[in-house]
């Protein structure tokens, strides 16, 4: 009797490479129209090594098992009022930032991988991208479900998706992914698959997931565990893409290097919010941003780029600037949110004296000199009953869309400002890195939807900032925003915990 089941090797072949077919009456180039315009040369797609070694049927089986365990824990978390086990009500603001700023990126990653999973003419890459696409969709769903419990008890979670598309600081992560998704398929893979998922992912997920573990948030920790094996697969795909491109043709090397330079810079700018979350928003600290950068980029990334040197790839441009900025960016970002606390979708606060001392110890070369005085001033103002909320709207960087809050590393008291004139119009940048990206493709970045300018053009409702916040952003003004002191979140927390 013939075997009813295929052996593993045959099954793998039939369910991956054998899914492709030759085109007998259509032009293959027309079927894959995005494959050449970026200048990348592929000589033989058969050299692609499948990074996952996984067929679709086993994929569904593994993922279904993980889902069952995950949702069992979510149910238990919810039934046992798991939100009461977090360290204090400040912690939950890190989750609000995650849900509005990061989870929608998972959705954009799902869309992006689905797109390139259609556009590559190599079937191995298509199948891998399809699986990653499904992973990303699963991640956004499980994150929303993990945090939906908090939405029942805390403010600021209710309009995360709407906010992601509109709120001034959320245009930073949003435009990051829009940039990658509107690039060609190979740039998308270097941007997201390699630079983000491989080089920088540990600086995003480890801080949030360890932060959850250190601060009593079982729901988020469990999501993190459930995503971990997916993330490991994504990292192998990112690395495979780079090696494949570099081995296919020597002309690919300078193009890939240019993309690594660009996306490393864009990625580190985006991670500024993680830096701030680690140093200021977690009541129980995991490690400082500076230390995380040293462990996960300088050590791990350093080894990776040593390995890539044999292909002619060097360290990303401006890595040495970022090495200096690790001493500064978290402080600059939290100060920005603290002073714009009236326009943020979460609560902000002055660090406690104990936290200020922790920051001094973690940042001996910069904190007392440059940043403690900011908090001394904030305390003075608060004591006078004039909690400082800055007036007006900030200047934004045309490329990363972050307020121009970064400073010169040879004079950290002075904001860093660069500009370019393109076709008689002036554009402003926070850094040489962002200016270079604009100068390479100005026709792309003239289209930046800068929230401050959009408000002035009258495209976000108004006339006042408060109208924009409540009507256009759908923030619950006076509830979702402002200082944690005196907030409804804090009041409820104190009632639950019996704190006078």
């Amino acid at each position, binding site marked *: 009797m013939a075997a009813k089941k295929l052996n593993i090797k045959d099954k793998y072949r039939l369910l991956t490479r054998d899914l492709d077919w030759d085109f007998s009456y259509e032009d293959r180039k027309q079927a894959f129209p995005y494959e050449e315009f970026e*200048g990348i040369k592929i000589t033989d797609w058969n050299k692609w090594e499948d990074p996952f070694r996984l067929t679709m049927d086993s994929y569904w089986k593994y993922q279904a098992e993980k889902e069952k365990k995950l949702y069992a824990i979510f149910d238990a978390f919810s039934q046992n009022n798991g939100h009461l086990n977090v360290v204090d009500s400040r912690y939950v603001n890190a989750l609000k930032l995650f849900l509005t700023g990061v989870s929608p990126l998972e959705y954009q990653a799902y869309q992006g991988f689905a797109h390139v999973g259609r556009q590559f003419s190599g079937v191995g890459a298509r199948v891998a991208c399809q699986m990653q696409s499904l992973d990303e969709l699963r991640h956004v769903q499980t994150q929303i479900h993990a945090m939906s419990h908090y939405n029942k008890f805390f403010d600021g979670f209710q309009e995360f998706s709407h906010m992601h598309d509109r709120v001034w600081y959320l245009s930073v992560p949003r435009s990051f992914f829009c940039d990658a998704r509107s690039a060609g398929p190979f740039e998308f893979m270097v941007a997201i698959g390699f630079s983000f998922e491989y080089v920088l992912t540990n600086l995003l997920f480890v801080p949030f997931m360890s932060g959850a573990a250190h601060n009593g948030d079982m729901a988020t920790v469990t999501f993190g565990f459930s995503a971990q094996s997916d993330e490991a697969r994504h990292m192998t795909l990112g690395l495979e893409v780079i090696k494949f491109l570099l081995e296919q043709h020597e002309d690919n090397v300078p193009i890939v290097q240019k993309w690594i330079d660009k996306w490393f810079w864009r990625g580190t700018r985006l991670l500024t919010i993680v830096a701030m979350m680690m140093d200021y928003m977690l009541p129980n600290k995991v490690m400082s941003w500076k230390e995380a950068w040293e462990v996960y980029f300088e050590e791990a990334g350093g080894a990776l780029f040593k390995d890539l040197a044999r292909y002619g790839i060097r360290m990303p441009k401006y890595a040495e600037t970022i090495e200096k900025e690790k001493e500064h960016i978290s402080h600059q970002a939290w100060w920005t949110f603290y002073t714009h606390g009236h326009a943020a979708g979460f609560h902000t606060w002055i660090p406690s004296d104990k936290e200020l001392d922790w920051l001094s110890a973690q940042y001996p070369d910069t904190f007392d000199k440059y940043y403690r005085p900011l908090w001394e001033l904030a305390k003075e103002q608060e004591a006078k009953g004039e909690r400082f909320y800055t007036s007006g709207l900030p200047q934004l960087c045309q490329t990363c869309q972050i307020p121009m809050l970064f400073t010169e590393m040879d004079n950290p*008291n002075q904001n860093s*400002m660069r500009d370019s004139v393109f076709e008689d119009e002036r*554009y402003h940048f926070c850094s040489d890195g962002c200016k270079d990206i604009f100068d390479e493709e100005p*026709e792309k*970045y*003239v*289209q930046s939807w800068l929230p401050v300018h959009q408000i*002035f053009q009258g495209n976000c409702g108004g006339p006042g900032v408060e109208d924009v916040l409540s009507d256009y952003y759908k923030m619950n003004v006076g509830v979702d925003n402002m200082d944690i002191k005196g907030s409804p979140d804090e009041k409820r927390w104190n009632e639950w915990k019996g704190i006078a």
Partner: protein
Amino acid sequence: MPVYALNPGYKGERMDRVENFHGNQIVYVGWDEHRMFCAAKAFPLPPSMPFAAVIENIMPEAFGQHPEFSQINWETAEWLLDGEPFKPQLEASLEAQGVGHKSMVRFKTPELQGFQNAGV
């Protein structure tokens, strides 16, 4: 190359053309080495506005919350317009002295070092 696009001749929409601001132009103002304000600020201003009005009306709105603001001596302030040294003419309009759409106006107050003399 101004853009890597699928189709040759691709042009992006300029989102911040001066025509989009209803008769105003964007002007950025920044007070150097005063980090109480995390970044320079943006204002939509009529190009015909005299510089004196910027000092009288816009500067207090932008920076009046700073404890040193009342001590600023506008006579001795040092200015940069789009990165170049600049001497504002108080009675002339923004337009007439080269302050254009999305120009960056920075000033330095050498005698004021910020809160706790720390550049704050």
